[in-house]
């Protein structure tokens, strides 16, 4: 049985960039623990010498010529931005 404590739950939430109020951390920790316990069945499997799967179909990824295929669509790219100004995406101040 895997136990995720409150500090770990808080850390995971921060790594995932999801604000989780302190009051919700115990429930989150419990849910994560349940899921990890479920996953731990995988420890029963003998995986000695087995390659981790990287591609489900045995084919090489296709390559294309390294060249510009489109561009000139600033307005389209910004059209869905919650805050776009002067041709840029606007965000809160990042550096002082």
């Amino acid at each position: 049985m895997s136990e995720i404590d409150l500090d770990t739950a808080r850390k995971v939430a921060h790594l995932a960039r999801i604000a989780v109020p302190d009051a919700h951390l115990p429930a989150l920790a419990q849910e994560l623990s349940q899921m990890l316990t479920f996953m731990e069945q995988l420890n029963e499997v003998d995986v000695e010498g087995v390659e981790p799967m990287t591609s489900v179909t045995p084919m090489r990824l296709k390559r294309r010529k390294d060249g510009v295929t489109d561009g000139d669509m600033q307005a389209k790219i910004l059209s869905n931005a919650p805050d776009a100004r002067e041709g840029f995406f606007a965000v809160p101040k990042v550096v002082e």
Partner: protein
Amino acid sequence: MSDLNKLTIAEARDLLRQGDVTSVALTEACLTAIEGAGKLNAFVHHTPDLALERARAADARITAGDAPSMCGIPVGIKDLFCTEGVASQAASRILEGFKPEYESTVSAQLRDAGAVMLGKLNMDEFAMGSSNESSVYGNAVNPWKDGARELTPGGSSGGSAAAVAADLCLAATGTDTGGSIRQPAAFTGTVGIKPTYGRCSRWGIVAFASSLDQAGPMTKTVRDAAIMLEAMCGHDAKDSTSADLPVPDFEAMLTGDIRGQKIGIPREYRMEGMNPEITALWDKGAEMLRDAGAEIVDISLPHTKYALPAYYVIAPAEASSNLARYDGVRYGHRAKLGPGDGITQMYEKTRAEGFGPEVQRRVMIGTYVLSAGFYDAYYNRARKVRTLIKRDFEQAFAAGIDAILTPATPSSAFGLGEMLDADPVQMYLNDVFTVTVNLAGLPGISVPAGLDAKGLPLGLQLIGRPWEEGALLRTAHVLESATGFVSKPPKWW
């Protein structure tokens, strides 16, 4: 002609080509059906004007003699597909207001073949769920009812399944990461096929778990699945995992002849405490295929038991990475910020407000299994188990098995709200028969095969060899004919 919305694709195509019906008439019949079906909450974005415009264009093409099979056929599109100028939200608050400037390859291929988009269909948020209850739009409702009890249409493609079963459209697109086409198809008495990984381009489909996601059609019959799948498939340079293989004429492969085919029955799918009705249906399905000339062979897929835990490591890991793009900067929702909030608070508040509980849970579990110190123990181990799961299938196929018959789901549709208090793992068990297929990248199809004691549809799943969707559809077509499933839910909505 009445009830045009109840036609199959094949019937409508033939009537269109004979000039006996117009696409405008078909489209109007579907739009009327959609208007009267608000209670099902299947269509969540309506595009009637666009639909009629495309229907008129389709009629012109048909008159001019240039009509591919999907030309003039009204379809619904799952909200996961980006559609140009039309809201595409993946049923999430975080994509509120998002109107893509581009069209997904699959929906573009359907559009270019003349298919008429009626609107966007409900689903679980980011395709994470098996009951359509994680949707920001509220759940879709199954047109099949158990007395007064309202049921889930399944998920994640719940809106697609409900819309097809209720004849709101002739067919719909779905996507399947762990069973999201096949489980809702089974719950609604419809047909759903997930093709081989790489058959359909993933470009423009909101990504959940990129190594597992595949699009596919949800239809009223196997023949319709063959017709629509052909229009959706094909190589796309914009998806590096898209297969550069010719797309066969799937419909022409529905010969009805499966003599000599070897059908495997995997013993590990016969689970303890399994619903006896499901076991009986499975046995009956095997008998029907035997009567049609197939050979039934007991097989073993020894790592089946580990598919669900492996999936629930790999899929959330990929999701946590894919969903990192929802940061409140380029599209969708951005949280209102307080004084002094910086960019980290913007990300954290935006994602807390924008993602529902199930999506948050999966993003966080994915973050955990990918984090330093746990990567090998969880993520790498799951990928090794995935190799073994795929090897099980390869060995079965190498031994001469042509297709594998299993139940599609562990039960018929359950009641809405019934799983809300269960722990998340209970809901995941819905995928127990379907998830292996995604992990192995194989094609799988759910075919309605009968009704249970409550009068609700049950499905059987056939799993095929990679790239052999045609042979899989042929076997599914024989099974469909043998079961003679024609039941429709009585209209109550």
